[in-house]
Every structure is written in structure tokens, then in C-alpha cells.
């Protein structure tokens, strides 16, 4: 049995768990190849025009998997991974959208509700609903959850050590040759953005690597522990009620208020709803702290050159601030 997992959205966060989970259940796991122009175009064809790019890309990945002849496509309904917090409504209606708008999904949809009180979404209870469909026993599900959780924890540990998600994925693949986290002697930039924007190389045009090539130390929210992310959020009267937006805000507050970075870049997708509000909060925070802040908004039409120019200009400006007047950068 072949189970396809779209290489998009929260695959960048929970992918290692899901992959291991289905492998343990005895299925052959097919992960769609990374995003390219064709995937995006296919996705656009079946999506509502106004919807945000990450969802269009997700739909493209689903089509890619269907084409490769999988038996099931795994599309979980991401409802909540934190008490009192949710996901963007589009995540909560993801299987509904796929089932009713992508031709061919209806019979091959494998879905379950992720409704958890914490980030650890390994409670077998949530996964029993798919046991019947895959003809496995509940016991096997429990075992698979445990095995998957182990892998995921390893994955997160790599990330918390200062590696990007891409590097953490690499580390999981070659456990014997785990690279040390990259440390660059230079200004530090907080790179804020959802994992599926920042680490999708097609979307972000590999902005992390670009920054590093310019001699920048990159800090992202997944390198910070949950406790650090919560420190300043706790004091808010009402924080954002989307888990990952809240994490980004927590990360940003830590960066701005502890002055632990020299600049902040916010990577966001065109039409992202939560980011419209998050962006405003970041803007206000930047004004108060005086730390430079830039928003990079990307969509399916973005060209590479404009990103390079803007990132370079931002970095030059940061470097100039630290160099005495008259010296060369």
C-alpha cells in the first residue's frame, strides 16, 4: 500500500513523525518532490484564485501524488495543537477543500483530526480512526505513534540546537554525519515566517542560504524553545489565537525586547490572513525598539532578483550601522 504525504504546509514541522508513523504501519510512504513551477501551476488550476500561495502549492503537491499513483493521500485536519489556540481556518478545512475541489481525491483521502492540547500530537486516540481504513490493529497504531514520536523529538532537538529545518531534515537522513550548527561571525537577523514559507525553496527562494552567503547569522523561531517563545506572550491581555502566529509573535517579542538581533525580516505569503495582523504588531514593536524591520511578501509571481536586491540592501544597511563612518564595509 502506498501512502502519499504532500511535501507542503506542516510537513515541514510534523513530516518526520508522519513518515515514520506510516512506515511503522507497513505502508510505503511517498513524499512528493519539492515544489517547482509545475507543481505551483497545477495547484493554481484547482484552487480558488484568492486563496494564499501555500494552499495553492499544497493542492499542487496533492495532484502530484495522485499522478504518481498512490493509494491514499494523507491530508490531516489541523484543528488545534495547543489549548485555546487554533490554526488558520484554511488548515481546519483542508480535507474538505481537497475533497470537494481537487478531482480524484474523494476516494483516496486519508484524513484524521489533529486535536491536541500540546504540540505532541502523538496520542494514538487521534489515529484510531484511520486504523480501520488501513486494516491495522489499534495496537500497531500505538506502537507506530511511539516510534514516530521518537523520530520527531530527535528532529526537534536538532532544530533547537540552532539548525534550520532543512538542516534538521538532513541530519535525520544521515545520523552519522550530523553537521554542527552554522555559526557566522557577523550581524544576526531574526527570520520570521511560517515553516512552509521559509523552507519551501521555491517560495522563499532559499532566503536563509542567501543571508548566510552575505555573512549573516540567521535565527528562526524553531530554534527557540517553547518556553522562550511564551515568555513575553504570557503578559499580553489577548494574544493571537493561531498557534504558529503566536509562536512567531513570541519569537519576535523576544528578539526585539532582549535586543538579541540586529534586524528582523518577516517572510509572508500574499493573502495570508493571520500575517496581516501579526505584521502590524511587529511593525509597532519595531517602532518601539528601533530595531530595523522588513517585510518580504511572496506569491506565485515573485521574481528572484527583487528578493536578492531587497535582502542585500537590508544587510548592507545593517552592516553600515556597525561600521565607523569613513571605513569600507
Amino acid at each position, binding site marked *: 500500500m502506498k501512502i502519499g504525504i504532500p511535501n507542503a504546509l506542516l510537513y515541514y514541522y510534523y513530516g518526520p513523525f508522519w513518515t515514520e508513523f506510516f512506515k511503522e504501519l507497513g505502508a510505503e510512504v511517498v513524499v512528493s518532490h519539492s515544489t517547482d513551477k509545475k507543481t505551483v501551476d497545477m495547484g493554481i488550476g484547482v*484552487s*480558488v484564485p*484568492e*486563496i*494564499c500561495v501555500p494552499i495553492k502549492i499544497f493542492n499542487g503537491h496533492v495532484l502530484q501524488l495522485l499522478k504518481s499513483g498512490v493509494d491514499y493521500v494523507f491530508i490531516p*485536519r489541523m*484543528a488545534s495543537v495547543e489549548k*485555546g*489556540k*487554533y*490554526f*488558520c*481556518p*484554511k488548515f*481546519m*478545512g483542508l*480535507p*474538505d*477543500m481537497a475533497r*470537494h*475541489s481537487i478531482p480524484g481525491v474523494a476516494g483516496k483521502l486519508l484524513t484524521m*483530526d489533529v486535536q491536541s492540547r500540546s504540540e505532541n500530537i502523538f496520542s494514538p486516540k487521534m489515529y484510531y480512526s484511520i486504523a480501520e481504513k488501513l486494516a491495522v490493529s489499534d495496537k500497531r497504531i500505538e506502537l507506530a505513534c511511539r516510534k514516530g514520536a521518537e523520530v520527531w523529538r530527535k528532529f526537534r532537538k536538532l532544530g533547537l540546537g540552532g539548525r534550520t529545518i532543512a538542516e534538521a531534515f538532513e541530519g535525520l537522513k544521515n545520523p552519522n554525519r550530523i553537521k554542527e550548527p552554522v555559526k557566522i561571525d557577523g550581524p544576526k537577523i531574526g527570520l520570521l515566517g511560517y515553516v512552509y514559507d521559509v523552507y519551501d525553496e521555491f517560495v522563499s527562494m532559499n532566503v536563509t542560504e542567501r543571508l548566510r552567503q552575505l555573512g549573516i547569522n540567521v535565527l528562526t523561531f524553531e530554534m527557540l524553545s517553547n518556553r522562550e517563545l511564551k515568555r513575553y506572550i504570557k503578559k499580553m*491581555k*489577548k494574544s*493571537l*489565537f*493561531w498557534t504558529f502566529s503566536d509562536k512567531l509573535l513570541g519569537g519576535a517579542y523576544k528578539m526585539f525586547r532582549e535586543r538579541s538581533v540586529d534586524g528582523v525580516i518577516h517572510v509572508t505569503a500574499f*493573502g*495570508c*490572513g*493571520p*500575517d*496581516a*495582523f501579526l*505584521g*502590524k*504588531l511587529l511593525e*509597532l514593536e519595531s517602532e518601539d525598539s528601533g530595531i530595523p524591520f522588513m517585510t518580504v511578501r511572496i506569491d506565485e509571481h515573485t521574481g528572484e532578483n527583487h528578493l536578492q536586491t531587497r535582502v542585500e540592501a537590508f544587510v548592507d544597511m545593517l552592516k553600515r550601522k556597525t561600521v565607523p563612518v569613513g571605513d569600507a564595509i
Partner: protein
Amino acid sequence: MKYSFPYLGNVLVYKKLMEMLGYEVVVPPRPTQKTIDLGTKNSPEFACFPYKMLMGNYIEACEQGAGIIVSSGGHGPCRAGFYGELHERTLRHMGFDVELIIFDSIKRDLRGDVSKFFRLKGKNSLRKVVSTGRIILRMLKDLDEFDKKIHTMIPYETVHGSCLKAFEEIRMSYDRCWTMKETEMAYEEAKELLASIKLEEVDERDKIRIGVVGEIFVVIESSINMDIENTLCSLGCEAERSQYIGEWVDHNFFGKGREKEILKMGEDYIKIIIGGHAKQNVGHIVDYSKRGFDGVVHLMPFACLPELVSQSVIPRISEDYGIPVLTLAIDEQSGKANSMTRIEAFVDLIKNSKRKKMSAKTA
């Protein structure tokens, strides 16, 4: 301290509520292009349209001296739950000394809501608040009832404009009410007034009914949705909205109404409540088609999160139930002429297909 509120639907009722409790009220002006421009200028570019409209609305209210704005909020996953926070920050940033009292979900923050309630109660006795609440609720429901009623009459009125004129008179007579008895009398008078309007005799089979579903702000507030109901009526169709404030209050405060049933109908398409009214809207479309409506207009603010999900599944419902649906995205950029053309074409198509069905039946 002057009190104000967002402009949404029959604002007369909110005004009455505050006045009855003895507060000085600023009624915000009906949203115009200026309101929307003001709001857009002071909002994040990608914020949703209702946010911008309310922003402009609040600014205009503050300019007229409002010090406290009372509104309802929510707690996700739709963005409306965070409106209050950002609105207040922005208004303060602009130099207005204003406070927003937002009632969030009662289940989540009972203590906070109770303390807000007592603040608004002020020196009024609890008994007075309850009796006022009853009168207001009555007014709300009555006005909704007439609102619904006249939009089934306008297409057939013999004297153009007589229904809307009558509705305006009804509103004014309710504005003069202070007690339950007066309200009841106003209700009887209003009923008589509506009954006296002359209507053309139209065969039941020739009537065209169109439902209006969508995001609550753009469905209810006629000043920002191109006056959709009256527009449809002027094209010879009866129109009914999926949202009325009275029903909203009934469901959210008393758990009454048809909403549960509607949610059940939407289950096949959107399994869980994903915020906003996406699931309800999907259910309403199914409901309209079961009740024999001829078409549905689906209104959404540009890039509204929950409505994008319902927009994605609507083509399937339309196919399953054979009911035509027209989706219109509304924002500060939408031009009336463009939407008008689409609505006219939509109504023409419905009329044609209905005529064809009829002639096929008689043949």
C-alpha cells in the same frame, strides 16, 4: 462619557438600548466611501474588509466625541476575534482617548464578560436591565421580521418605493417606543401598515426567490454590500438573508433558532466549525435549495479566511443540489457597476432556466 457602537444593521436598536440605560449615545454615521477610505488608510493592507470598515466607523464615531465603544468579539480562528485589540491600539496611536469594551465568547472568559456587563449596567437596577433587555430583544426581532417581510413584497409593489417608505415609518415609530406596551402597539400598527400596501397578483410559480449567504458583516450591512437585497428586489426577485442580528442573539445567548439544524446540513461539506460562518453558510445553501429557492448569492470580504474554504466547496454543493450560486468578493476596491452586471446576468440566467423548466412541464 459618550458611548458608541459599530454600525451594523438596524442600529436603531443599539441606540435605544444605550439610551434606555441612561447613557449619552453617539450614533456613528452610515458607512460611506469616506468611512471606507479612512479605515483603509489606517489598517494593515491585508486586513479583511470588515476590519477596515469598522476602523473607519470607529474613527468617525471618535471624531464625534465617543469615549467608549461597545462591540462583540470572539476567540478565533476567524480574524474577527482580534479586531478589538488592534482597533484599540490603532485608535490610541491616532491620539483618540477611547476605550473598547469587547464581549468575547461567554464560555471562554465568563469572569471578564460579567465584569464588563456590570460596568455597562452602571447604576441601573438589575430589574431595569432585564426589562430593558426584553424590550430591546422584542424590537430587534420585530424589525428583523419586517425586514424579511418587505423583501418578499418589493418586487410586486404597485407603487414603486412604497415598501421601503413603510419600513422607514416603522423604524421611526419604534424609535418613539420606551415601554413594552408601546412596542407591542407599534408592532400591530406596523403590521397593518404593511398589509395596506398594494401588491400585484403574481402566480406562485413565477416568483423567483434568491438567498443571500456569506460573512455576517457584508451580508447584514447594506451600505457596504451594494444594498444587495434591494438590488435583487429591483430585478424582480424576492431576497432573504441568512443572517439577522435577532437570530444571531437568539442562537448565541439563548441557544435557540434553526442554527443547529443548519449546521447539521453543512456537515457533509465542512465537517467542523472552522470559524466565521463558513459551515453555517454551506448549510444555508443546502437549506435554500431544499426550500425551493432559485439561486443563492454568496458574499465574502476579499481574502476572508473561513469564506475561502466555503468558496472552495460551493461548486460541489451547486452541482449536488442543482442550485446556482454567485460568489462576490467585496472590498474597498469593488466597483458597483462590475458587480451589478454580474448580478443582472445571474438573475437573467435564473429566470431563463426557470421559464424553460416551466414550459417543459406544461408541454
